[in-house]
């Protein structure tokens, strides 16, 4: 043990350095914690929160029942029962749509997979419940979440199908698909 180390030992030098560190934190008190229920942190822009189903501006559901979200989901959260729109054999919709949010890992793959942007991730995260069956959501609940989280809805553009336009049997009130 060198003389310097010996002096440091008997004067509790290391101890004093440590005490100084804690004291400086006390004097320059700046807490990094937050009083959560009273103050909430700003969420990042790409925050992925609760999932929801969206509507067009005229109130119709966007979902076309294609099942791609169900296929994309890695934890098998989603279950879609697809059906034809009554009276319009070319169109389909989701007759039933269930999400078991107890399994969801909020990866956002279903949102990416959706071809008509019918799914959206809201910024809600306070979804603690006492009964986990309350996290098994049906279509109405998911649409309600979308309604309260996305007040600005996308305008529905129904376009002339290019094939019928070619055969000149088109509906006159529908616009052409832009190039």
């Amino acid at each position, binding site marked *: 043990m060198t003389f310097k180390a010996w002096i440091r030992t008997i004067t509790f030098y290391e101890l004093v350095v440590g005490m100084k560190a804690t004291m400086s934190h006390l004097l320059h008190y700046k807490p990094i*914690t937050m009083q959560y229920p009273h103050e909430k942190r700003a969420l990042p822009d790409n925050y992925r929160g609760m999932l929801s189903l969206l509507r067009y501006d005229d109130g119709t559901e966007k979902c076309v029942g294609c099942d791609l979200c169900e296929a994309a989901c890695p934890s098998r959260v989603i279950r879609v029962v697809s059906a034809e729109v009554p009276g319009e054999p070319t169109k389909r919709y989701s007759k039933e749509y269930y999400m078991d949010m107890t399994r969801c890992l909020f990866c956002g793959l279903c949102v990416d997979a959706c071809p008509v942007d019918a799914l959206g991730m809201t910024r809600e995260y306070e979804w603690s419940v006492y009964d986990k069956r309350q996290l098994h959501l049906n279509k109405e609940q998911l649409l309600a979440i979308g309604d309260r989280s996305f007040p600005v809805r996308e305008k529905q553009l129904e376009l002339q199908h290019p094939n019928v336009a070619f055969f000149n049997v088109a509906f006159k009130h529908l616009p052409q698909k832009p190039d």
Partner: protein
Amino acid sequence: MTELGLRLAVSFVQILAEMSIVMFTVAVMTLAERKVLGWMQDRMGPMEVGPYGILQPLADGVKLFFKEDIVPAGANKAMFALAPMLTMVVSMIGFAVIPFGPDMTLDIGGLTIKPFVVADINIGILYILAIASIGAYGIILGGWSSNSKYSLLGGLRSAAQVISYELNVGLAIVGVLLLSGSLSLVEITEAQAGGFWHWFVWGARPDGFFPIHTQVFAFVVFVIAGVAETNRIPFDLPEAESELVAGFFTEYSGMKFAFFVSAEYASMVLVSCVAAALFLGGWNAPYPGTIFEYIGFQQLAWIEHIVWFAAKVYFFLFMFIWLRATLPRLRYDQLMRFGWKVLLPIALANIIITALTVYFFPRG
């Protein structure tokens, strides 16, 4: 009213006042520890109960009072109930000989009483050493009667630790006793009157300034051993969370648990009081006399004395928290080696040196 009745009544009032002061300090400490610890770790500490969480001790007390009292299967029920009471009583009665304020007397109905010390006995230091040692019994009993291996290990560790460090406390005090020539805490404190250079931690002779009789090594040994004796971090081996769950009070709950915890805090306060009285001049201000005396309020000087005593005690209590925020826990062999191979030789050498200096440079 007979004289005995009056004496009993006065003693009862004094004890009640002292108990409530100590329990108030304990409550303040439970909050202060959590707040200061939080601030030092960039947290806020309790914030919910009352403004800035200042009513937290009250909420804790109510919670612990209404909690279920669980006695583990196979526990020795009588001992299990006795242990927290023993610890609590022992850590409270130590305060009987602590002088909180100056050595003045009051006349009440023909009785002469000392308002700031419950019992000014002439062996105050020995009494405190004896009482502090009995505190270990409560811990060992609690550890043994719980019928749990963690509790038992915690209790045994506590026994070994208290024996090792009690010795250092006793030897560190001897230097002070040599200087003051008395075992009474009141007389020891009075021997340090007249400015901080007469405190035993500085140790000037009554007519000088040079620290010829300095007890600073004894002071360091006493404070370290005091931290160890109250089972505080970094010497909290008996209740090491990472190894022994909670040590000797693993199996305790409700009010019994509260007794153990408040006994720990009360013994912290006791050690702080003793350290302040022995080494930092007790109620004496760091300047000669008192300010109240100079400006002509002789009869109010006791307020200043009490404020100084409280300031010293709270300095030590803050240091307990500060140490807890800073230091990690010692390993058990390190603890024992430090006690026996470092502190004990220092304390012994301090006795010899102090004896020699007192012999060659007598204190008037």
